[in-house]
């Protein structure tokens, strides 16, 4: 089988990666993230129908009136309906929603309450979330440095940060809703990316110890080629699941599937071109990976 020279284009792709990450950060600054109802809060409207209505019809009439993301729930009885909207509450919102609902039904509808609602996610989650990420990164670095070598831990963490930034960047660029399901997806991307990077690193370590010939670049190339089949298989199976979720899963898991599809693609790419690249940039060599030799007892007697 032909050996693909992965590392031949590494400088070009390093520039590409840096551009992607910088672009993502820029987009995060300019566009910000479009936080969903979970994070920002929104408005709540409660209405009472004179007789019970199918919830699908209510959703449909709200969708037509320009509230596609509305959450519609029965509230205590089949005729009382609670509608939650991901937009700022205004004094006239209740009546606007009411007229939208009246247009879609024969029954009488009356307004019970119209109020703003706060975020479902507290500020403490954002703070703790950020802190948790940093702590997680630190511990991953320590563990990888202990099991592999320091240069590998830098590679793994850089690849991880690379993936998360790009997923967030795409979300802000396309102005996709960032809600709790997307947050869960980002956490899964972290798990996936790390898993992938470690598998590749493991083979690189093994080959550095096993192969007597070749410079670092050749050894890494060989390792990437050996793991390529596995990398593609795993990405493909995961992507298969995600395609199914994306195309058949309905709008609720759309965001989740989108975030993960980007994450899996970028994660696969980054374990080849980011993690391995970092190793070369840091001048990984055979000596870094030889099992530590036992120090000889120095006989200090004359």
């Amino acid at each position, binding site marked *: 089988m032909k050996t693909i020279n992965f590392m031949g284009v590494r400088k070009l792709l390093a520039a590409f990666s840096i551009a992607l990450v910088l672009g993502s950060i820029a987009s995060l600054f300019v566009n910000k993230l479009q936080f969903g109802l979970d994070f920002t809060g929104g408005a709540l409207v409660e209405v009472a129908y004179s007789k019970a209505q199918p919830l699908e019809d209510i959703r449909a009439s709200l969708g037509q009136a320009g509230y596609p993301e509305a959450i519609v729930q029965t509230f205590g009885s089949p005729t009382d309906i609670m509608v939650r909207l991901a937009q700022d509450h205004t004094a006239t919102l209740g009546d606007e929603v009411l007229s939208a609902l009246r247009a879609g039904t024969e029954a009488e509808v009356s307004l019970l309450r119209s109020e703003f609602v706060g975020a479902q996610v*507290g500020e403490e989650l954002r703070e703790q979330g950020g802190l948790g990420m940093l702590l997680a990164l630190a511990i991953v670095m320590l563990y990888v440095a202990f099991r592999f070598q320091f240069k590998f831990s830098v590679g793994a963490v850089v690849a991880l940060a690379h993936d998360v930034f790009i997923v967030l960047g795409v979300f802000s660029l396309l102005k996709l809703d960032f809600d709790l399901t997307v947050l869960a997806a980002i956490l899964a991307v972290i798990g996936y990316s790390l*898993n992938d990077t470690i598998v590749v690193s493991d083979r690189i370590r093994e080959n550095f110890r096993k192969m007597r010939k070749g410079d670092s670049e050749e050894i890494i190339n060989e390792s990437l080629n050996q793991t390529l089949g596995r990398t593609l298989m795993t990405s493909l199976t995961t992507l298969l699941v995600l395609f199914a979720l994306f195309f058949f899963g309905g709008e609720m898991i759309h965001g989740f599937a989108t975030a993960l599809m980007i994450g899996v693609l970028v994660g696969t790419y980054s374990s080849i071109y980011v993690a391995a690249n970092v190793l070369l940039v840091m001048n990984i060599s055979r000596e870094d990976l030889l099992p530590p030799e036992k120090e000889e007892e120095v006989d200090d007697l004359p």
Partner: protein
Amino acid sequence: MLNRYPLWKNLLIVLVLAVGVIYAAPNLYPDDYAVQVTGASSATPIDDRILERAKRALETEGLTSTASELESNGALLRFRSSDEQLRAQEAIKRGLGDDYVTALNLAPTTPDWLTSIGAGPMKLGLDLRGGVHFLMEVDMVAAVKQRLDVYVSEIKTKLRSERIRYRAITHNEDGSLNVKFSDAEARDAGQTLLRREYSEFQIAAEDADGESFLNINLTEAKIREIEDYAIKQNLTTIRNRVNELGVAEPLVQRQGRNRIVVQLPGVQDTAAAKRILGKTANLEFRLEARPDESRANTETFEFRDERSRPATIEKDIIITGSSVANAQANFDENGMPQVSITLDGNGGRMMNRVTRNAVKRRMAVLFIEHKTRTRYEMVEGVEQEIRTPYVEKKIISLATIQTALGNQFRITGLDGAGEASELALLLRAGALAAPIYFVEERTVGPSLGQQNIELGVTSVQIGFALVLVFMLVFYRVFGIVANVALSLNLVMLVAAMSMLSATLTLPGIAGIVLTVGMAVDANVLIFSRIKEELKNGLPPQSAIHAGYERAFSTIFDANLTTLLVAVILFAVGTGPVKGFAVTLSLGIITSMFTAIMVTRSLVNLIYGGREIKRLSIGGGV
């Protein structure tokens, strides 16, 4: 012999899988939509007669229940669909009248033999199944008054230190303060001082009945700020309490200016939740007054247990419950309930400083609870709920200080183990900044439409099927082995989540499938390794052996690193992040078991211990 598992290993695997299957089984029995009928007061009995009346009420609406049973805490009627359930609740409520509470419920249909070994289904989240909805109102008047009390003591200190002579500070009905001075000169000096110190005051100098006083109003902006602070603080505390209660995937958010919504998924002990969420309890630690202390500096309180006589204690507070960093309920040497308290740094220093100079004196623990009396009155023909808040302060313990206390000590004198754990929970979760009342309680339907739920479930099934087909095509017999392991992994994961009674949401389901997608990875790693070894010229048996052997360290490293991340996320995260971390960790552990142990056992059964020419593991890589 190569590639043979000893019998005990195979038996162990079968045993683990069997336990998994049994504990996952309750999820096959779907919950029934049910309506629960209980008496409005616990004295109202529920018997066959009531059940008959409920059934008659259903008949008039053309409804029938699929089953009905009498339980210790009421009657349960089961229905086919949630629509029927909602209509039935209306009908029964009208039929039985106000003496009975009819509540929507979800009744598990787990067979008795499963329930008896502690197996039960996973709970479904607010998005899939709905839950109970509480609307609580924060008492803003009380919040502002509490802040004014702080101002009063600050103003007194400031006036005293500037030697400005005042007579009294009083609260007015409209929420303003009056500061009375001995003469106009003192008042003007006071006005200058307070203007300088407090930009948030609107101060007016007034003279009435020969007295000079200042009328102090808080600015509108300041009142808003106090209210905002109170509601934010309460929101945090309520979130903490919901988490402490162990309710997974709740919804807690602000609604309108002064209200908080709490939604709890699935069937929960709603009575317990209500009791904990609205409770405003705190502790104060104070020294017992010396006999010669002036009356102005002391207060007298009663004990919680009515046998002891009231005690007089100092007005100065050493610390309050807000200095508590951690609290645990446990039992003392005599088996009496107690709460072990750890103070934060500041609290510990305060406690040490005061108790150091008070050895042999006694210290009182004061239990403070904000309560309300509710009565109903007819106002212009409409019944109105009138709530009068009051504060109950009682001493729960008065003990001699044997030695200077540090940041760890215990409190006793509690009313049983239940109260000890409740007090510990409240201290851990923090106090409410202002009293809070329940104004509405309802059940809510699922936040996702039926259509969305069905789409989600279908897509998950399609995704899983695709992975199975893909593995079969690529790895042939080994693919079948991997598929068996994958399916078993799903069963094990469901079993583990059911044992922890985790709450399942739609993103959670997607997460499970994702862990399945990723669990394939371990098998892909092993199979690729086997193929590689075959290519290197190893005979099939050795290739299998080497493949498993070599791939193990890779799988172990990769999974352990991910598991580390999951554990950290669980430790620092809250709510949804925690839930995800649990799913991820369980998925990693179960997939390691099925992908390595189970597949090896199967491969050994198929190929092990005999002469083979080739393996059915597909071509290519």
